């Protein structure tokens, strides 16, 4: 188990390092010089341009700049925004808590609703199963941006229950403003998790060891809890990990749709403004979230299923 943990953390660090290299390198290769952002439409003098390049360390070779940036990142210094002049860390810090709260709300919704749908379909074959299966196959094709517009149209514009954009004051106001964005992202994920849960539980229900438990006179609910659900947990955990990672990516869309001041909106804004230091930092952050989610789900799986632990530590 310990060795598996070390291996996973090593792989995680490698992936992060590689993607940081890709992100930094690709922005370096971008057409047009980054300092042009500073000058906008004005044509700078050669001296002014050289000064700007020096200030941004653009006059140094790529490996040196990458090394400076990387050591800066490791010390919590993410650079300075080229548009606002603020430290990037401050801009990200402001949005991070909002995005994390949004993702957390989405995943709570997904786990509760998705599991409920999957369990209902698995345990009630026939009409309930058919209805839920139809619902899940449709909902996995509803992308967050379509769900956003439908939710805004019904619950914000028609009913006026929730704000169509922006967040209110305090935690209550923030949660109030995040309900619709969370729902918009949850639609697709609920369908996905519902499907995975149904199939995993169905598969376990047919397993022989469940018959053993039944024939020993254990109550049905105990058999369901300690054998069927317990063993179906591994694929469900994987799905939740994948979906959490995907939700971080979906914040790009949904935060823009609802004007939520989080990391996703910051990314899209910075991309539009070509604010490279910010883009670099948020991209790395989102990739990091993605990789951490995947690694975490692998580890939880190993906790849940001792068989994976075995192969993990020997190979």
């Amino acid at each position, binding site marked *: 188990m310990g060795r598996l943990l070390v291996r996973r953390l090593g792989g995680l660090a490698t992936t992060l390092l590689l993607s940081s290299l890709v992100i930094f390198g690709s*922005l370096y290769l971008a057409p047009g010089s980054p300092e042009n952002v500073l000058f906008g439409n004005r044509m700078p003098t050669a001296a002014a341009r050289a000064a700007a390049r020096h200030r941004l360390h653009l006059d140094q070779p790529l490996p040196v700049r990458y090394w400076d940036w990387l050591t800066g990142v490791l010390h919590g210094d993410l650079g300075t925004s080229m548009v606002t002049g603020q430290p990037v860390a401050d801009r990200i810090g402001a949005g991070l808590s909002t995005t994390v709260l949004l993702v957390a709300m989405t995943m709570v919704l997904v786990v509760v609703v998705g599991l409920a749908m999957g369990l209902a379909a698995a345990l009630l074959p026939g009409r309930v199963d058919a209805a839920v299966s139809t619902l899940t196959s449709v909902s996995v094709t509803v992308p967050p941006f*379509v769900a956003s517009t439908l939710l805004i149209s019904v619950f914000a514009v028609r009913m006026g229950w929730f704000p169509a954009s922006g967040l209110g004051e305090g935690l209550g106001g923030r949660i109030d403003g995040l309900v619709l964005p969370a729902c918009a992202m949850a639609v697709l994920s609920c369908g996905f998790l519902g499907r995975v849960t149904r199939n995993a539980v169905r598969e376990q229900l047919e397993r022989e060891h469940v018959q053993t438990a039944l024939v020993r006179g254990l109550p049905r609910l105990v058999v369901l809890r300690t054998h069927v659900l317990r063993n179906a947990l591994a694929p469900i955990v994987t799905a939740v990990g994948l979906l959490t990672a995907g939700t971080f990516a979906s914040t790009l869309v949904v935060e823009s749709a609802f004007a939520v001041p989080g990391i996703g909106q910051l990314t899209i804004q910075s991309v539009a403004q070509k604010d490279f230091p910010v883009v670099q930092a948020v991209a790395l952050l*989102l990739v990091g979230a993605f990789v951490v989610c995947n690694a975490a789900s692998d580890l939880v799986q190993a906790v849940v299923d001792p068989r994976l632990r075995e192969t993990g530590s020997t190979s």
Partner: protein
Amino acid sequence: MRTTLRKAARTLGRSGTASAVLLLVVVAAALAAPLLAPHDPNQGNLLDAYGGPSGAHLLGSDGIGRDILSRLVFGARTSLLGPALVVGISLLVGVPLALAASWYGGWVDAVVARVFDLVYALPGLLLAVLTVALFGPGLTPAVAALSVAYVPFLARIVRAAARQQRVSPYVDALAVQGFGMLRITGRHILRNIAPVVVGQAAIAFGYALLDLASLSYLGLAVQAPTPDWGVMVSDSDALLKGYWLPVAAPGVLIVLTVLALTVLGARISGDKPPGYLKRRRRSAAPPDRTAVGAAA
């Protein structure tokens, strides 16, 4: 002709056939857009702004009086072209790589698999957003980025399927007869795994459509005046004024198209329809499981 169609319908099942018909209609609309669209998709009459459905405008018109139905019909072109390019490029890159990896095995396979895993770990949407940050918004950078992101999606499945074929006796038999790698993989392995490749390509097409529409919605892929389903959904002005049809119509169309693609893709690659589990349990469960085991 008729029997071929009937045979296809039987293999695809009811939902698969319905999906195929829907997709044919959408593709036909995209191809014949100038003939089918009742109005110019970009020409609006301000007097018709936010007009409801009528004889002249079957689905009403948007905020500057453009006919929504016409925009949907023309929008099918950009909305389908993007994902078609993405899937086409991913297949061209991914399938040969996957076939080579499965054929040679060893370190070639290990390297290819590792690269696939790495790219697979990055969300396609994020990759596309970064690319747009570099090259500016437009369909081309978005398609390029998504093509890269979709290679592992298709190639991982092709690699697994081809590996299964690789170890089957018929491949050894062909190799013993002196056939080379190109001929065996091209003529035999690829043909045998074709249903999986086509099915997964259809599913990937659906996801690519969603991703590209999301990017167009964000203003990062197809640009505003061009009719495109993703662009049409981003009409927040209509939305906030309470006119839902200009936004809902393209939204529903996206969902239906992707639904049809996933259903069809699953059927082609051989997944069983929902409810199959129940029926299987009824019929094919060996009547005497232990005895069947004992027969060995």
